[in-house]
């Protein structure tokens, strides 16, 4: 970490504005950090030339006293976002060589506001995974050291493509979380279908927010599950996340599900008093056999907010236990249809075949990894004639009930809900390899309800485990009330402090 890469996004912005630093230097410092951190495998494509050109253009604008809210700030982009002329594969083999002729709305908004693109970030294939191990480009290592590893041992493990024994950065936005936590970029775009922003944030000690469904446009984001997918940022502070989201969000006539309402200045809510707010603590999130460290952290979080002037109340979200099974019907169902377009006919991978059905079968069998194939099969099954009512329709009904649970809680005067972010701290790469896939799915137990209800959810780091690994807390808000979450998140951040991985052992 150099002086320039140690800055927060807000700090870098202020120094650029005062001309204390240049975007070129800031960008070059991050490119150098990326180069040294190749072993983490966070980036799948680095756009150094483009980054420097964008930085120079930003410097020119800044010199004229112009520039947008993100002018000259180098960030990373999850491989899920279409970036014109640049590697866009959702880290799948089936999109081999795909470089779109278009730019996603979210990234276009970022470039409009002056941000600089460093490259594309690793992720679980098609965002299906909770550890970044399903990526066609291999697993990503977290910058957090495994509890039993010395830096030397960890460096040795980095050289191995499998990164065995190193900590997983969470998923699916594992490239984004690792890169932000390792100071390879000031912030990154991520996406969240069942927890893919919030779980990696918690496991790497950074801040992530999944905004309300419809707050960010999905146009140009490779779709996983359309009714659940939402864009959002990963950053090192609550303020940085607020700054990023303000630029990413906004109306888009190209996405029918995108909200037309204007985007507030989220940064203004950072530092706002939380006095008088009512925070609900849902008893259904207290799982049997819960990790005591997580339970203690949750209580501490409630205590901090009480100390900051909020009122803590118990709330009930009775349908919580149905959320995970229902999620694992709805999300694969939508995915099975969304991913039908990857057929080898128009773009991406095509396995040679003499007739069309053979071409489909060979291309899709070799183009999709095992986890994607599993979910496509589940999704196809639950939508099949004779099963639709028992699975998909019932899952949609559960979804309505989950939404109603939250509506009742908010209707009773609760301003936000506090929960743990994950059931445990980070686990090691390969640790779940032989486990039942459901073990991995359980990582999403605290986060999927938020996607099912379409609500905003913010995760902020709140402490370390006894092993020295980061733990996070989640705040769930009313629809389109991200501002309250930023205010509360900052209150926790103030109380808990910030958490950084050990010195750059990977460099």
């Amino acid at each position, binding site marked *: 970490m150099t002086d320039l890469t140690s800055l927060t996004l807000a700090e870098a912005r202020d120094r650029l504005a005062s001309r204390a630093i240049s975007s070129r230097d800031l960008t070059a410092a991050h490119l150098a950090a990326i180069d040294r951190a190749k072993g983490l495998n966070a980036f799948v494509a680095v756009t150094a030339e483009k980054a420097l050109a964008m930085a120079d253009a930003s410097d020119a604008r800044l010199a004229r006293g112009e520039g947008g809210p993100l002018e000259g700030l180098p960030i990373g982009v999850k491989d899920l*976002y*279409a970036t014109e002329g640049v590697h*866009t594969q*959702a880290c799948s083999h089936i*999109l081999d060589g*795909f470089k*779109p*002729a*278009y730019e*996603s709305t979210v990234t276009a908004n970022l470039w409009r506001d002056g941000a600089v693109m460093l490259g594309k970030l690793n992720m679980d294939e098609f965002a299906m995974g909770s550890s970044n191990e399903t990526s066609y480009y291999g697993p990503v290592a977290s910058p957090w050291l495994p509890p039993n590893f010395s830096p030397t041992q960890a460096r040795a493990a980095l050289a191995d493509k499998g990164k065995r024994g190193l900590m997983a950065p969470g998923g699916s936005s594992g490239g984004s979380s690792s890169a932000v936590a390792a100071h390879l970029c000031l912030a990154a775009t991520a996406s969240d279908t069942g927890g893919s922003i919030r779980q990696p944030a918690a496991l790497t000690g950074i801040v992530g927010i999944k905004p309300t469904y419809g707050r960010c446009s*999905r*146009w*140009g*984001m*490779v*779709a996983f*599950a*359309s*009714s659940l997918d939402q864009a959002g940022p990963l950053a090192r502070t609550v303020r940085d996340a607020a700054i990023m989201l303000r630029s990413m969000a906004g109306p888009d*006539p*190209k*996405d*029918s*599900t995108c909200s037309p309402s204007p985007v507030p200045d989220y940064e203004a809510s950072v530092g706002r008093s939380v006095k008088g707010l009512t925070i609900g603590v849902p008893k259904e999130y207290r799982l049997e056999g819960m990790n005591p460290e997580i339970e203690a952290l949750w209580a501490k979080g409630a205590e901090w907010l009480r100390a900051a002037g909020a009122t803590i109340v118990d709330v009930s979200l009775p349908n919580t236990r149905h959320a995970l099974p229902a999620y694992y019907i709805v999300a694969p*169902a*939508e995915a*099975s*249809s969304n*991913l*039908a*377009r990857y*057929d080898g*006919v*128009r*773009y991406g991978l095509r396995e040679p075949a003499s007739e*069309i*059905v053979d071409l*489909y079968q060979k291309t899709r069998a070799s183009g999709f990894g095992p986890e994607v194939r599993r979910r496509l099969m589940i999704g*196809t099954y639950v*939508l*099949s*004639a004779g099963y*639709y009512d028992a699975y*998909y329709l019932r899952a949609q009904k559960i979804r309505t009930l989950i939404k109603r649970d939250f509506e009742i809680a908010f209707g009773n005067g609760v301003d936000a809900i506090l929960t743990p972010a994950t059931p445990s701290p980070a686990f090691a790469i390969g640790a779940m390899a032989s486990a039942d896939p459901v073990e991995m799915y359980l990582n999403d137990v605290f986060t999927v309800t938020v996607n099912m209800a379409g609500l905003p959810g913010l995760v902020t780091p709140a402490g370390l485990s006894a092993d020295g690994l980061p733990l996070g807390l989640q705040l769930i808000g009313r629809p389109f009330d991200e501002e309250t979450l930023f205010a509360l998140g900052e209150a926790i951040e103030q109380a808990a402090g910030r958490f950084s991985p050990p010195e750059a052992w990977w460099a």
Partner: protein
Amino acid sequence: MTVQTGNAKLLKGATGDWETVIGLEVHAQVTSRAKLFSGASTEFGGEPNTHVSLVDAAMPGMLPVINRECVAQAVRTGLALKAQINKRSTFDRKNYFYPDLPQGYQISQYKSPIVGEGEIQVDLTPDYAIRVGIERLHLEQDAGKSLHDQSPTMSFVDLNRSGVALMEIVSKPDLRSADEAKAYVGKLRTILRYIGSCDGDMEKGSLRADVNVSVRRPGEPLGTRCEIKNVNSIRFIGQAIDTEARRQIEIIEDGGTIQQETRLFDPARGETRSMRSKEEAHDYRYFPDPDLLPLELDGEWIDALAAFLPELPDAKKARLIADYGLSAYDAAVIVAERETADFFESAVNHGGAQRDAKAVANWLMGDLSAQANAQGVGVADAGLSAASLATLVDLICEGVISGKIAKDLLVMLLGPDRGADPRALVEARGLRQVTDTGAIDAAVGAVIAANPDKAEQARAKPGMLGWFVGQVMKATGGKANPQAVSDALKTRLGL
């Protein structure tokens, strides 16, 4: 309208009479500039893959956005079919793999269509009509086209049509013969063309039908149906129904049973062929499209669309009968195309004075229609203006030209003298009929003098008069007034 009696529409089998039961799913291409969910052009006949947006090609991350123009057309069509307009409808995905279906699913309306039940009155003869129930109308995307004849080893795909808006109009199984089905499609096409929601051009594929056919003994419950896919002309629809009904009757009479299946009609061989059986049927895994919000329609907006609908064929027919004294048959022929009906009315009313509507109708349906058919166009486009037709009829009524000359005049006006004023043309070509009794008398005298034997015969057999009229007309180059010739002949011959 009367109820048809007898069993003219029953088919005779070896063991007795059979009734055919038919339901149609008509796919009508919506007239709109852009596709249903993308801004790409709907123009027909472009070079392959020139009217394709990122959405139509199903590029990663692309999202559909509904085209309100297509929605308006569907609502207008529903109103014209006297159907229920559903203020809330939803879009579903119909999932299947095919190279001309880039998304891997068709966006359609499965559960909640935009238009519900309606009805069409179908005239089978001038005084016999049936009512055919409409089950529903929904919006959906068309697919692209696979091209198998461009390379010996590969197939190509043209996505120009991919995503073009279709209305699927589903009838109830209310049709009982090929003729009824043909008349139904004809009437539906007329209505669509009246309101401009579909051009009805079957050659370009703007209107296609899936035909469901079953047979049963009269009075018995419905038989097992087969669906004949994608029939693209009204004539073929009739042939396909007859062929399929005969096939089913033969199987049942031979002791077999009908398997529910999808079939294709091969017009060249005059047979239907199995495409896939019920067991092989696709499981389309319909589910609501999460990329699209439910379609909510505003009542005032629907009312505004209703207010601006043109006069529909049934109303127009009734009005032509009432206002112009046309026969039901003539009125039905004239209203089949809106342009023809408009042409008729402007010809009748040209110049502010209403002329003989029956005479206008006869010219329009007779010689002008024949000339237009020969050109392969509608009567309104044959090259004669409504004003010229009006003048032509006036010239006959005024006795300026004979009907015979008028036919020649029409040929001139559609050919070498296209665009000429008929009245001026009559003068310029000296076509004015001769009413001068002196000249006619002289011609009559000459013909009688040249045919003394025939004159003798005619005095005994007045039926011969017609022959003399013909001879005199010939001698006068057709310009003599036939009535004047007849009168002069009668006087001369003492009849």
